[in-house]
């Protein structure tokens, strides 16, 4: 059997693919963060909790309303996005004039409260959520068995990333958003309701997190700390990609997924650390991130 660095080639291909799948989650989550930071200048530390809420809403829809996975993909982002709108309207919008740190502390606190409430209500070991019948089973790729569901996650994540990029870069509303980031007073003077646009942007970023949560529900344990485990990595992804850079967070998300996947083969113990090593190196050499503007 062919070997690369002492690892059988088929195993290595498998790990590359798995890394890409995890990268899809990093990309989706960091995309939401990047959109929010780019437009609102708020570092949304509630993002992990909102990812978790997406998964829990999917569970609630199934168990309390009898609505399955496909409905959850649609409804959960709307519901969680709405809570995001409320949070932005009542709390975050008051902090725009202050230092970044205030927004960070507020969203961090809100995230802890949300996690605490869910933990109190549902415990910590989590809820069962099954892969929808249509996506069960696996493909034999020759070098590994690839669950159909994971393939679906990658495709959906790429589509969602592309769609977000198109909306922001190629549509009229996207151009308003970008303009408002550069100079909110001027855009306001043209008769565009900038505060409402900010609110909706935050809602959309949160909805993206919830969407990722629904995608994650069938493969990760649906528990209150599921977001906290992931969010630290996702922040590193955003920092490496360049704060607020949409293309940066998507590319970095997938790339770091692959790097992490390879580390899991060559040095598994370091797989939770490798991303932060990359982050340190990037910050030392390019403080604005790989795709950021200094």
């Amino acid at each position: 059997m062919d070997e690369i660095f002492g690892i059988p080639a088929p195993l290595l291909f498998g790990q590359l693919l798995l890394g890409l799948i995890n990268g899809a989650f990093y990309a989706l989550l960091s995309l939401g963060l990047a959109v929010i930071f780019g437009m609102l200048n708020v570092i949304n530390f509630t993002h992990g909790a909102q990812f978790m809420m997406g998964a829990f809403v999917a569970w609630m829809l199934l168990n309390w309303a009898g609505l399955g996975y496909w409905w959850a993909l649609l409804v959960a982002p709307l519901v969680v996005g709405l809570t995001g709108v409320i949070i932005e309207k009542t709390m975050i919008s008051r902090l725009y004039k202050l230092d970044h740190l205030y927004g960070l502390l507020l969203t961090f606190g809100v995230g802890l409260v949300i996690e605490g409430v869910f933990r109190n209500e549902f415990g910590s070991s989590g809820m069962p959520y099954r892969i929808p019948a249509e996506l069960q089973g696996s493909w034999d790729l020759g070098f590994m068995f690839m669950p159909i569901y994971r393939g679906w996650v990658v495709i959906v994540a790429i589509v969602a990333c592309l769609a977000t990029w198109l909306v922001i870069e190629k549509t009229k509303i996207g151009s308003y958003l970008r303009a408002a980031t550069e100079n909110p007073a001027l855009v306001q003077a043209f008769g565009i309701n900038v505060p409402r646009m900010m609110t909706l942007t935050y809602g959309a970023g949160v909805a993206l997190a919830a969407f990722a949560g629904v995608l994650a529900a069938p493969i990760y344990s649906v528990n209150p700390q599921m977001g906290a485990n992931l969010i630290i990595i996702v922040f590193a992804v955003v920092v490496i990609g360049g704060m607020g850079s949409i293309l940066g967070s998507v590319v970095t998300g997938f790339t770091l997924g692959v790097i992490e996947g390879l580390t899991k083969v060559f040095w598994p113990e370091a797989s939770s650390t490798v991303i932060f090593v990359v982050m340190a190196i990037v910050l030392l050499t390019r403080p604005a991130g790989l795709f950021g503007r200094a």
Partner: protein
Amino acid sequence: MSQDTTRRAVLGAAATAPVWGALPWRSARAQAANTIRIGVLNDQSGLYRDITGPGSTQAVRLAVQESGITQRGVNVEVIQADHQNRPDVGSTVVRQWIDRDGIDVIVDVPTSSVALAVNTIVRERNKVFLASGPATSDLTGAQCSPNTVHWTYDTWMLARGTGGAMVAAGGQTWFFITADYAFGHALERDTSEFVRQAGGRILGAVRTPFPGTTDFSSFLVQAQASRAQVVGLANAGGDTINSIKQAAEFGLTRRGVRLAGLLVFITDVHSLGLQTAQGLVLTETFYWDLNDRTRAFTQRLGSMPGGLRPSMVQAGCYSAVLHYLKAVGDMGVAAAKASGVDAVNRMKAMPTSDDAFGEGTIRPDGRKIHPAYLFQVKAPNESRYAWDYYTLLQTVPADQAFRPLAAGGCALVRS
């Protein structure tokens, strides 16, 4: 990075909050001499919360109530704190509890790395450590202490129960997915020993970062590539749940690989759902539906946080505190408070008896001895009522369930 700075700073304050709550006691010095203070230290906010957490405190309170010691004029105070599965946080809380708040006995402490740290501090300060949550068999082996009783289970027992059953059923080649800390290492080591003794072979192992690993697919694929017949999961709680869920997704079991969940709790089975968990073989020392006494105990415990049934760790907290308070009643509060070693020696001298574990004893190395049970998780159609999850496969008698006294290398035994 940020996990070690931001989260620690904010959560660290939260962790010590219960300690501040204990401050008013210091003024009531007159009462202090006649008061036993119990500190329940465990995971209140992370992946082991359902197994330990507030449910353990609830079990301790039931033990206090049923011990009848308060009717004899002894005050018992119970407080709890969160160690976040971190040895540094756990050590800080225990030092404050003992040095400042006059805590006499530390109960529970899941997460072996934290428990080993607490074990040392409690010994230095000559208090009592009733370890129900941790798994590492080192607590009664190389690191055994005259101040510690290891109550509910340990890695040797799990290895013998589940590992032994797997080897007996023909699982000759093993690959381990191991949580990269004291507990995972001990469980892998103890299980490997059994496998080798039975003529089996270890084909490989992968150490997964703890805490913070959510995706096990990469490790599962490595396990599958090793062509081992059995994949041993030397992890616990949320890690085990994610491993089993993802093993089902990647179809490991459909391709003839057998999963050995070396430490699976009933709350994990509940979380996985019977559809995914069915057929799993596991070892526990307590099951709420085992017999009339365990059912009665579960009923007296009342409704648990999150609507869950008690785990063996929570039952162990009850049993341990009940026995400790019996010893206190026997030797007097002053003597029990004066020396943790004396209190533990008194506990060792008395046979144990309670509804959760039946009759038992405590060995000189601090190991509590009771039977272990090999269970199989039921299929959804076999489960007749809520939490009807296990079929009893085999009872391992008390004298065989744990590592032989001489084999542990405990200094207390040699002397």
